[in-house]
């Protein structure tokens, strides 16, 4: 099902390509030994190399190279044995050298794809043109002084992976799904923490519109959008703007635009430097990066199971529906939790508890799954207790709540609180008898035809059992006694 904008003059299709900058997880920067940790005081994580001092030279950090290769595997891409670093030349206060070391026509990774799942159950394959390594820039603060901008170079030189998709995205939803999937992949691999709100993952969107089947239109680039929701909004707005512009006789210009998340609009960033030309050329301070086969093979072998493979396995091994499996594998930690909880237990039921009760609790408490108050083995055990009849699913709600509160095992809770299900027929019979005996008038009403009262009797008896009576047995016995 395609996303179509119904214009006044007909249908329009949108064409989107995304450029995502992922900050690489490494201890030191891409070309220097300065630290990358967040939150340090200004300019305390800066070497003379990062600050562009005279005579300083770059030496590449091996870990950043490995992270790029790992991510390349995650993107089903070609790992280029030889790649070359180039300088992108421009002036800005956050760029101490007057150039950024990046990669131009020989990136380390090229030609990959990722498959994204859409809400309607369809899967779309989005091509990846390339992934290259480059340096991050410093940070500017404009609000510290009336006439000055403050420059902090702590981020300058931190490694980035720029991942460029092909213009294969056709709707805001696909863009969102692509970003979520990409984030999931880099997090699985551990090459980027994927936090868009902290800026460790940033997105530029190239948006154009066209009549279905026609050649690509002129695109506008929306820079630096910092959440998935905003990327989707920005694309939606921008596509609409372009359609309206064209339909009213205007022309889309190739330009850089900025997304205003408050107004939900994109705005032109009129660049003063109309003559911009980055003058890429190979960095003469570096020589080509040549990867050796042994390293590539080692990294291939070390690759963790990625979301797609895991999903497939969850469906096959645990019998989960595709949708549930997709939900559980989106985050590695959730998937791990699920497996720890489901191992040897009723996986489907475990999955339901995770996606239902557990997510609700985590959401309410603002916790991640790794901080879950319920240990996975306890959840698995609880499901066992339900399945073997020790507790009813109704009681399980209470047990779960106690696990959240007290962190104890379900066995301990059942024992301590005496929550074991009553399945002894004579015991339940006695309870039913007591309730009937205490309510002769209601019994009479029932017998007089008010059959709706059956539920009332069941409820009363259940309450008398403190909820512990086996519900099926209870139902059956109440009915039997009343109808006797």
């Amino acid at each position, binding site marked *: 099902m395609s996303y179509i904008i119904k214009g006044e003059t007909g249908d329009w299709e949108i064409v989107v390509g995304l450029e995502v900058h992922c900050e690489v997880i490494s201890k030191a920067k891409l070309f220097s030994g300065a630290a990358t940790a967040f939150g340090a005081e200004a300019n305390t994580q800066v070497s003379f190399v990062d600050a562009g001092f005279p005579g300083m030279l770059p030496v590449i950090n091996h870990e950043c190279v490995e992270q790029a290769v790992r991510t390349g595997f995650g993107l089903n891409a070609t790992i280029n044995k030889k790649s070359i670093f180039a300088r992108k030349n421009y002036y800005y206060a956050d760029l101490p050298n007057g150039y950024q070391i990046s990669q131009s026509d020989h990136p380390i990774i090229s030609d990959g794809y990722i498959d994204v799942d859409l809400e309607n159950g369809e899967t779309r394959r989005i091509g990846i043109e390339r992934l290259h390594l480059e340096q991050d820039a410093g940070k500017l603060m404009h609000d510290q002084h009336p006439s000055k901008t403050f420059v902090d170079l702590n981020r300058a030189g931190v490694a980035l992976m720029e991942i460029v998709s092909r213009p294969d995205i056709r709707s805001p939803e696909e863009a969102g799904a692509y970003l979520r999937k990409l984030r999931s992949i880099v997090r699985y691999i551990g090459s980027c923490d994927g936090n868009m709100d902290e800026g460790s993952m940033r997105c530029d969107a190239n948006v154009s519109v066209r009549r279905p089947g026609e050649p690509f239109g002129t695109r506008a680039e929306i820079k630096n959008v910092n959440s998935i929701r905003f990327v989707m909004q920005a694309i939606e707005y921008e596509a609409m703007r372009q359609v309206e512009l064209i339909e009213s006789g205007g022309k889309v210009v190739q330009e850089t635009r900025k997304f205003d998340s408050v107004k939900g609009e994109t705005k032109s960033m009129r660049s003063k430097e109309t003559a911009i030309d980055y003058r890429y050329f190979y960095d003469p*301070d570096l020589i080509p990066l040549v990867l050796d086969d042994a390293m590539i093979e080692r990294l291939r072998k070390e690759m963790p199971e990625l979301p797609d493979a895991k999903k497939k396995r969850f469906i096959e091994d645990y019998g989960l529906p595709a949708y549930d499996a997709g939900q559980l594998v989106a985050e590695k930690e959730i998937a791990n939790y699920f497996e720890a909880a489901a191992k040897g237990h009723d996986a489907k039921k475990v999955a339901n508890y995770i996606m239902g009760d557990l997510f609700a609790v985590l959401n309410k408490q603002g916790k991640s799954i790794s901080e879950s108050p319920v240990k996975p083995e306890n959840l698995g055990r609880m499901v066992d207790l339900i399945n073997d009849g020790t507790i009813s699913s109704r009681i399980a709600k209470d047990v779960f709540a106690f696990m959240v509160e007290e962190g104890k095992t379900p066995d301990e809770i059942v024992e301590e609180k005496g929550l074991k299900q009553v399945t002894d027929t004579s015991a339940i019979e006695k309870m039913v008898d007591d309730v009937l005996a205490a309510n002769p008038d209601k019994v009479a009403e029932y017998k007089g035809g008010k059959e709706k009262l059956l539920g009332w009797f069941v409820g009363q008896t259940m309450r008398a059992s403190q909820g512990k009576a086996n519900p099926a047995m209870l139902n059956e016995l109440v009915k039997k006694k009343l109808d006797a």
Partner: protein
Amino acid sequence: MTDLVELTIAEALDGLAKKEFSAVELTQAHLKEMEKARELNAYVLETPEVALERAKKSDERRAAGKAGKMEGIPVGMKDLYCTKGVRTTACSHILDGFVPPYESTVSQKLEDEGSVMLGKTNMDEFAMGTANLTSYYGAVRNPYKDKTNPDKFLIPGGSSGGSAAAVAAGLCMAATGSDTGGSIRTPASFCGIVGCKPTYGRCSRWGMVAFASSLDQAGTMTRTVRDTAIMLEAMAGFDPKDSTSANVPVPNYEKALTGDVKGLRIGIPREYNPDKGLNADVRHVWEQTAEKLKAAGAEIVDISLPSTQYALPTYYLIAPAEASSNLARYDGVKYGLRVDGNSLDDMYTKTRTEGFGKEVKRRIMIGTCILLEGYYETCYLKAQKVRRLLCQEFAEAYKKVDVILAPAAPETAFGKDDDSTGDPLKMQLYDVFTVPSSLAGLPAVCVPAGTSEVNGLPIGLQVIGNSFQEETILRVAGAIETMSGMTIRPLRVGGK
């Protein structure tokens, strides 16, 4: 006791070892000489306190039996090398007052081997020049005199002009130079000293203010070939901080100076002997030297390096392109000059416009142009292709010969106010013999081989070797030095 400033490094090391004089005395003698010869403008910064302190420590180390390879030897440091706590400007206004908080690898190695820095030597701004006329601190005067016109202000050659003049005039025993397209060899030839540009990658570029990264190479400037061997060994070597530094062991270069050239095949490239543009005296010294080498048992081989004529335009595309990017960091934010402006770009533009000299600006403009879309392919990439051809031709040649013998400069030192100095294109022609080996990254040493019969000025010849064959070129240079019997000393302007 002989005049201490007349000694070679080898002699001084001997004297120091025999306790004939101390490092402090040796340093003091040079400091005094520097004072006397200030009108040469060879130094842009004299550092007597640093020098005397280091000399004192040197004497202590020697007394403790821990003498390094250059223990106690006073040296001049080209202002291109960042020196910790000592102002470094690459002789550009834009680096005004810059005091590096770090020491370049080369200067650190020299210090570690016991040498004593006397000061920072003058140079062309950012090493861009062949006459040392582009320095923010003014021109350097060549200590030699034109016998036909002794009052003429002769240039020392560039860009390492201050280093060359200082070494020639006895204002240091040796000095560092740097060579991008001939910046060591041209001044060495003009000032009658030995200048060696080793193989690209032989010496670390870390801490050396960059001009053109794929060409810049640190090197030595001394009065004798033996001194070159001593100094090169002290400053060469692998540096993990420079990604283009070669992990190749440094041999004992002094051992290579056997004086024996028997059986060595010495190539004479046809293309280095143009009908026009080569001074007759230079050609004569070149031919004579080849004859002498032949007489000493070497084999003289006629070779061809057909693309030689394209080396100069190739160089003048590649070097400015790299420079335009390397010099972008001078923006008035982190160090050096700032000229205030009413916006960031205004500040950048005012700072750079005022901070860079004319020649530097010209090269930045050219380099910027060459990297533009539309020029990149036809200019920059084309030059890089020709560069490969040049390298391949050298590689072919070294299948037939061990070294190549060529002039270093097309003529002897010229006057500061000569016509040619105003024309950038003409000035570039002085690099014609040095640029090809720079593009190929080959080691080359310029050694004094004779003097001009017309003006009495020194003439140097270049011995160019295959990659990492410094030992061979020094061996040949040593033989030439002996054969030439050159004992001339400059007629100092301010002194004797």
